[in-house]
């Protein structure tokens, strides 16, 4: 109960923030909120079922292009574009999810990566998507509006994950992560569960892509299907705690802030330090902040050494 009240307060605070912060804060906020949504969306499949998708950038790209094609080429309103993007992404999740969700481990990761690269290559050859040149959307001077939309999307995705974590459906997803063969013989329709998780993941990812497209007003295949964006989703979700409700959100807020601070103060070496942070995080806190919190409370700083002892050769 206390937790629920705290969360509601946090959301109210975030919703009110743009009326007190300056324009950069809002801009930074939009980015951070969208990233958190992407991490949370990745978490639905990656965190709960353990299927590490590198194809979320494909859903992001479809959301982006759905919105852009609707607005720039067909002159339809924004919400129609968002729906089109989300529809394309969810459709793609069903069609491609069925065959590739049979693959496990690295093979699944690479197939999803191939999906994203293939879609990017196809989009860059289509006239309706402006080929490799990209599309220009109309300019809107309403960053506060974009901020609130991004926040609403993050809240919606987090509520969805909250429901998953408490539901029978979520229990099924977790069972798949823990042992898929066992989950099957216990009566879980694993294919169905995985595809639904992928669809949910695709849905939120696509909407985030659509909002970002309208905000930034220019998209091209390289930015819409950016693999490094996908890697960032994974890192943020993993850093926070995969398969938890708030881990991915907290993780992505922290990493966004760290990255932003690095990029601002020591510009040139920021990416380098970010790479090192990833390496160190994987070594010393491979299960994310959530686990780190528990671990530190239980065994203190020895938690870090314990991780190495547990995972080294």
């Amino acid at each position, binding site marked *: 109960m206390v937790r629920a009240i705290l969360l509601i307060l946090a959301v109210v605070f975030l919703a009110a923030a743009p009326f007190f912060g*300056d324009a950069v804060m809002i801009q930074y906020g939009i980015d951070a909120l969208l990233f958190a949504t992407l991490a949370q969306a990745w978490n639905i499949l990656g965190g709960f079922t353990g299927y590490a998708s590198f194809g979320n950038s494909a859903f992001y790209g479809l959301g982006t292009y759905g919105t852009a094609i609707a607005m720039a080429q067909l002159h339809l309103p924004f919400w129609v574009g968002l729906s089109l993007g989300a529809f394309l992404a969810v459709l793609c999740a069903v069609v491609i999810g069925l065959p590739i969700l049979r693959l496990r481990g690295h093979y699944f990761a690479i197939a999803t990566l191939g999906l994203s690269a293939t879609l990017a290559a196809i989009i860059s050859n289509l006239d309706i998507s402006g*080929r490799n040149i990209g599309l220009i959307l109309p300019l809107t001077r309403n960053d506060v509006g974009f901020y609130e939309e991004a926040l609403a999307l993050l809240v919606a995705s987090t509520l969805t994950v909250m429901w998953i974590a408490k539901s029978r459906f979520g229990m099924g997803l977790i069972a798949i992560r823990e042992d898929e063969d066992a989950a099957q013989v216990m009566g879980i329709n694993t294919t169905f569960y995985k595809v639904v998780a992928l669809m949910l993941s695709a849905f939120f990812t696509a909407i985030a892509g659509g909002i970002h497209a309208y905000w930034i007003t220019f998209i091209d295949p390289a*930015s819409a299907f950016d693999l490094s964006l996908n890697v960032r989703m994974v890192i943020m979700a993993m850093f926070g705690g995969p398969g938890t409700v708030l881990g991915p959100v907290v993780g992505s807020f922290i990493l966004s802030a760290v990255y932003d601070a690095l990029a601002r103060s020591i510009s040139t070496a920021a990416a380098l330090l970010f790479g090192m942070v990833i390496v160190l995080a994987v070594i010393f806190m491979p299960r994310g902040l959530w686990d780190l919190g528990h671990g530190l409370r239980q065994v203190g700083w020895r938690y870090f050494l314990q991780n190495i002892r547990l995972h080294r050769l």
Partner: protein
Amino acid sequence: MGRLLAATLAALVMSLPVMGHAQTKTVTLGAALQITGPDGNLGRYFRDGYQIAVDRINEQGGLTIGGQNYRIALKILDSQTDLNLSVQQYGQLVTRDKVDFLLGPYNSNFTLNDSVIAEKYKVPMVSGGAAAAQIYSRGYKYIFGTSPPADNYFGSTLEMMTKLDPQPKKIALLVADDAFDVSVRAGVRALSAKDGFELVVDQVFKEHNADFGSLLSLTKSKSPDVILMGGHETESLNFIRQAKSLDVNPHHMMALTVGVPSADFRSALGKDAEYAFGMTPWMASPVIRDRWFGDAQKFAELFHRKLGYEADYHVASAVADVETFAYALEAAGSLDRDAVRDAIAKSDFESLYATIRYGETGQIDIPQIVIQVQDGKVVPVYTDHFLNKPRYPVPTWAKR
């Protein structure tokens, strides 16, 4: 943290002289450039070009705006060739760092995105490294560019070709699929239809393509008189090296949109750069006068002395961007953004880069000078008349 502290201290020290003159005020220009990351080698041209122009203007007493003496300050951030970060940083420059005006990043793609910030906050931005038509055709009012339109890049080359003997007929046109090169292609197609050239090869390849084996073999099989190639520097470099190794020789000549003017490019190619035609909107010539640097040649010498490498048209274009603001600020007589914006639109001055006049859309239109590598040096060959004798027709790889 230590670095942050050091940076703050440095900033303080740098701002000291300004504080010393109570009557001198500051106008700040800001840019987020690709200092690191894949575009880092070209981003630094803009950093150095902006910096040398600002320093020079300040050394010579700064500007007089509305009767008040001003110095120019420059705030440059490194976008690390990260598009998202670049947009964020431009936002930060405007709203948090409170810079007065914006200078553009390198390349069309970044400018397409970053100019949205300029438009959103109604801050004039002058960009020196973006030629794609899309940037200027959106009806935006606050973006200006000193790169000539992409669709006319090969204009002077094709014009020259009509005057060459033997007269070339068959053209192989190969361009990348990015915004800039697609515009280049559209221009060549229109012009070659007008001038009666035949496009025997007309292919678009993927941006960042590294292997041209198939395209070169196809080209060879069509035996063109001329190869026109449009792509980034890396693609152009691969293209020439692979043309040599596959023994692909156009009968008469090969011309490239980018690369030839850059020393980096020529030294990477070594002898294979010889005879290649290219283009530049700018040469370090003593006849191009400039208020602060004297003339273009003097500028080039100064630049080389200070920075240790050769200035090319990117650098000159960057200087012209800063000078655009200098002239416009003096003309507007205030730092009011809309007044300055209108003054920029009315720009008409001689710079070491070219005569600066922005067209309807905000883009400058100046002709490309056809250049050729002759004995390892870049020699201007043609503008609307021959400047020097081209080495033509070009010998085959085997006969060099």
